């Protein structure tokens, strides 16, 4: 109070001080409801998972989660000598390495086709391509199991008309993972397409006109203008698709139950099974390995696809 009277120049901070302090409490008051829920149901589980991964916690400890033994890195070392885990890691890697580019190519093709300015009914195409994204995976699995049924399925009957005997897509170890990959690309390319369309619409038309005047064909325009300017969108698409695909789970769960002979068992599915067997500590360790893989893949993609100029 005295400061205000004796030193007029500092009057402003003296007024702003309490107001800023009040604003502080206001900020936390607005943030609190979300933060409390987030702490309890997201952050606590993330930390708990890390702690569980160095214990021998099992389903029988469900009611007494603190009465478990510390086992150090045992769960982690066991993981890498677990044939099923290694198998699931290889399957997941194949799924990502093949599935991500496939999805991106399909999305790029659709986005460029719709953006070419030649097409009417753009909304119809866009909505159609996006339809699988909004559909429950369970419903999609029902549809695809029916499509891929070796006898009654549409796919093999169409193949039969051109004289090819289709395989038992989901029941044969040689085609099961490939079927899941194609199905995932089919299901997910629509959301990338929308992102790519937005990016394409941000490219100034003058660039294409100038290129056309210079005699550049469609392919040259695509390579020299579209691709370089789409790089941020492509990087973004690759990262979010990679993060999603590394967590492959629902597709094999509802389509193949991980079979035949573990040919479609993914890391997340393996974790889910370990949870089902009651091996909570072991499942938590595997989930942290997956977490590390996701961070590593994201960093790698930023390195590979990120700005090369600097």
């Amino acid at each position, binding site marked *: 109070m005295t400061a205000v009277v004796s030193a007029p120049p500092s009057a402003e901070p003296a007024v702003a001080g309490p107001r800023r302090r009040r*604003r*502080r*409490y206001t*900020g*936390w008051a*607005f*943030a609190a*409801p*979300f933060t409390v*829920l*987030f702490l*309890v*149901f*997201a952050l*606590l*589980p*993330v930390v708990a*998972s890390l702690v569980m991964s160095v214990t021998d916690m099992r389903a029988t400890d*469900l*009611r007494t*989660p603190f009465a478990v033994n510390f086992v150090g890195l045992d769960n982690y070392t066991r993981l890498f000598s677990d044939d099923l885990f290694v198998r699931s890691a290889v399957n997941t890697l194949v799924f990502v390495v093949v599935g991500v580019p496939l999805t991106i190519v399909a999305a790029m*093709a*659709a986005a460029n*086709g719709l953006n*070419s300015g030649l*097409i009417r009914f753009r909304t119809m195409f866009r*909505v159609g391509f*996006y*339809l*699988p994204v*909004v*559909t*429950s*995976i*369970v*419903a999609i699995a*029902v*549809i695809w199991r*029916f*499509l891929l*049924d070796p*006898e*009654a399925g549409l796919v093999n*009957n169409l193949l039969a*008309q051109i004289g090819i005997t289709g395989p038992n897509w989901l029941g044969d170890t040689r085609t099961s993972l490939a079927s899941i990959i194609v199905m995932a690309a*089919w299901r997910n390319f*629509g*959301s990338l397409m929308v992102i790519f*369309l937005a990016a394409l619409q941000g490219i100034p038309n003058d660039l294409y006109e100038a290129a056309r005047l210079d005699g550049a064909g469609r392919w040259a325009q695509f390579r020299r203008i579209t691709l370089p300017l789409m790089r941020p969108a492509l990087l973004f698409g690759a990262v*979010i698709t990679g993060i999603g695909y590394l*967590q492959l*789970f629902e597709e094999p769960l509802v389509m193949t*139950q991980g079979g035949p002979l573990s040919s479609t068992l993914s890391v997340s599915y393996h974790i*889910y099974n370990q*949870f089902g067997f009651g091996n909570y500590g072991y499942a*938590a360790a*595997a*989930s942290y390995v*997956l*977490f590390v893989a996701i961070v590593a893949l994201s960093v790698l993609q930023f390195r590979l696809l990120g700005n090369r100029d600097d």
Partner: protein
Amino acid sequence: MTRDRIARTSLYVILVAGLLVVVGPFLWMLLSSFKTEAEIRSVPPTWWPSTWSLANYRDLFDRLDFPQYFANSAIVAVLVTLGNLLFCSLLGYALAKLDFPGRRALFLTVLGMLMVPGMVTFVPQFVLVSNMGLANSYAGLVLPFLAGPFGVFLMRQFLLAIPDDLIEAARVDGAGEWRIFWRVVLPLCKPALATLGILTFLSSWNNFLWPLVVATTDDKYTLPVALALYAIGQNRIYYGLLLAGAVVVVVPVLIVFLALQRHFMRGIATTGLK
């Protein structure tokens, strides 16, 4: 000019072929759900049902308690959506427009959560919910999804673009912070709230793993859980019944999506997440 025409025609052919590949399976599902089981299994398959039959849908409602599953899905999705709209806009506003200690750290923590695979939180969440006595309850189905990081990100990005002057003006007029939020901020956020609402409703409606584990009795099953439990591990698959079930799961979403597809597209294009 003829070159242009060729380009245009081939583009249409490719796009229409693509559309058939994507939408065709849905049409086949819809048409086949009205066929008899015998016709569904006939070789070669038919497109158009030779006799239209509602038997699959009747079976669905006779054998399984589908109205109950439908209601459960709706209750959970509505609660999760309302929660996210409220909590995410509150925090999004605080992060975008209010200055408080720990703001940046809080935002980065919430954002970082987007990278954490669901399997990391899955087991501890189950232990937590079980020990809270919430297994097989609506609370157990809803609580872990009430505060999603995606919504915070979306609301914050949207609010950053709103000029401070509007909020300052209300403050100068003597409006309290709470009143400013309800009367000034939220009405401005309608487009973002619409996008967030639709996307949250949808992901909750389609959510599968958590209700599969938490809902242990018939009266708490959501639609996808009921359909999956019926589909998985059946030796003899009754496609007719499953397809009819799939139609019941898909159609409500389809209607919402077609009616509001603009909001979807904007939400995905601005945040890049679904």
